């Protein structure tokens, strides 16, 4: 609760830091903000060619939307995934990158984590806007579902913030954290149904005469729930199950609480260690 009040009291600083984040991101690059749209565009292109064309992954027909386009299927999950992946990797670095500021002035340092994520959230929302426009053009009437999309975005932001708080402090003490996360990120990517539909994951897996409930284990990953919820809302045009929303919320709020707790413990000697 205290922390909430702190975020609120320093909202001016938070918005300033977010602005700084946004301004310095594309400083001295000719294309500037276009990059933030070019990057996801290029990954969509690659995944579409490799998975859609070469490997012939079939997008399931949206129920009730009737949509079957692989690129749209991809976009609905890839854009949230990018926010997650960039948010985690960049917020982990946010303290080390801003060492100069931490050593010279006092302010609540979690704002650096929050502002890094805030900057990415802005890009995410722009990309999401583009995707929604494309979906509307393609005949997916997503507008009624937008309030729940907003709720998902909030939950996802909290999730990323929690992980950022949890790991950014640790990364100051052990720079390995970042490398470790970089290693983990592609694994997470392929264990989340972004480039393939969840139906490709076998319900049961027979190993050495035993049957392992693979799908259930797979679905324990909150990112699977998150990506599926986005897809249900945007691609299928249906309500994701309350259970899965609650599951995401528990993870998000839990991670923020744990993250903030760990951050407070490490915050003590940040200025001298960074």
């Amino acid at each position, binding site marked *: 609760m205290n922390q909430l009040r702190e975020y609120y009291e320093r909202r001016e600083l938070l918005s300033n830091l977010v602005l700084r984040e946004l301004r310095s991101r594309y400083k001295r690059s000719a294309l500037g903000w276009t990059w933030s749209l070019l990057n996801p565009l290029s990954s969509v292109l690659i995944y579409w060619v490799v998975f859609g064309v070469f490997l012939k992954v079939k997008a399931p027909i949206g129920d009730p939307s009737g949509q079957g386009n692989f690129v749209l299927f991809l976009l609905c999950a890839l854009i949230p995934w990018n926010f997650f992946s960039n948010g985690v990797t960049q917020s982990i670095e946010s303290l080390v990158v801003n060492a100069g500021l*931490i050593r010279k*002035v006092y302010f609540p340092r979690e704002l650096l984590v929050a502002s890094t994520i805030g900057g990415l959230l802005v890009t995410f929302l722009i990309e999401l806007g583009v995707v929604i426009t494309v979906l509307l053009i393609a005949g997916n009437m997503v507008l009624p579902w937008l309030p729940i999309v907003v709720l998902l975005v909030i939950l996802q932001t909290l999730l990323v913030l929690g992980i950022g708080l949890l790991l950014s402090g640790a990364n100051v003490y052990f720079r390995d954290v970042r490398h470790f996360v970089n290693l983990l990120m592609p694994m997470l990517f392929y264990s989340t149904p972004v480039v393939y539909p969840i139906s490709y994951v076998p319900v049961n897996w027979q190993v050495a005469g035993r049957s392992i409930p693979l799908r259930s284990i797979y679905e324990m990953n909150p990112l699977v729930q998150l990506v599926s919820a986005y897809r249900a809302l945007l691609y299928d045009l249906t309500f994701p199950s309350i259970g899965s929303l609650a599951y995401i919320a528990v993870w998000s709020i839990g991670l923020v609480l744990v993250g903030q707790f760990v951050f407070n413990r490490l915050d003590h000697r940040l*200025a001298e260690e960074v």
Partner: protein
Amino acid sequence: MTAAVIVDHVSKRYRLYHERNQSLKASLLRGRRARYEDFMALDDVSFEIKEGTTFGLIGENGSGKSTMLKCMARILRPDGGSITTRGKVSALLELGAGFHPELSGRENVYLNGAILGLSRREIDALFDEIVDFSGIEQFIDAPVKNYSSGMYVRLGFAVAINVDPAVLLIDEVLAVGDQEFQNKCTDKINQFRSEGRTIVVVSHSLSSVGDLCDEAALIEHGHLVKVGPAAETIDHYLSEILSVDPATLGIARRSTGEIKLQGVELLSINGGAPDVVELGETVTFRFHYDVKESVESPVFGMSLTSSEGTLVTGTNSKEQGLSTKVSPGRGYVDLVVPRLLVAKGRYHVTGTIYDSTQKTPIHEVGNLHTFEVVEGALRTSGITSLGGVWRAGA
């Protein structure tokens, strides 16, 4: 008087890593975190800084002064004890403020203002003043990574001092600025003091600590050795600590502590506003001193420096054949100037006391006093006036 800063049994421990490869593998193999030794940078330090005073922190390199200041600024958290501050604290630490190198001066001013708790509107209102004070209007939209170190400090100081702090912490940065800026800072600091705000300075320039500070603390190896009136603390430092180490005696020559200049008073017969003198007026510079040990015929010197930093003139009491023995206690000497003939502007007075050989300054204060010359009946262009009178020919 209430205390602006209370330092209460503060200890700060640093970790000195023997091998600092912040790697998980190394620490896992060793079964714990990287091996380190605790290093007490501050050990049970207590003192109070009264509201509205200027306080100096002195000590050798590595004694813990910057650590103390960072604890006051809340950047570091003490491991033991506590620090209480009253009102907004703004700090200008070693090598200037926390600026983002890629952003412009303007963006950094807004960012730093926000960090110090100002709203956008408040910074808008202060912005012109900040830029004006820093004197770098021309570069305000250039990224700060292209600034010279002087420009960096100028902007940092301008922000730190203009955000209306109750307590200002300055760590050894002003020396980077040029003479003009240093004079500006001295003026601003004086104004700051007169407004009843509190300043804490860390400096190796004992003369400027003696000059600026009411009180001072001496820190050695993390221990508080002495706290009290600035002159006494400086004396203690010079006699007790520097005498042990001849290598550092270069500074010590500046003041042997036998006799100290306390200040200058400007007496003018017209008795107008204090420290404002009319061109051509008669003024007396009264140098107050405080003697600890008798000195045989000391020589008093003074020089005037313009606000641009040009040495305008200098004189000493030996030239005039003044020979006087000073005995312990307070006293003063007067320099009577029948007609003050320097052009209008601000001037800084430097005061020096030499021993009779005139080789060793016993005490020297760089910026003892500032006054202003205005034009009245007499006017002039350039830097001085001849004081002459025009007469028509036959």
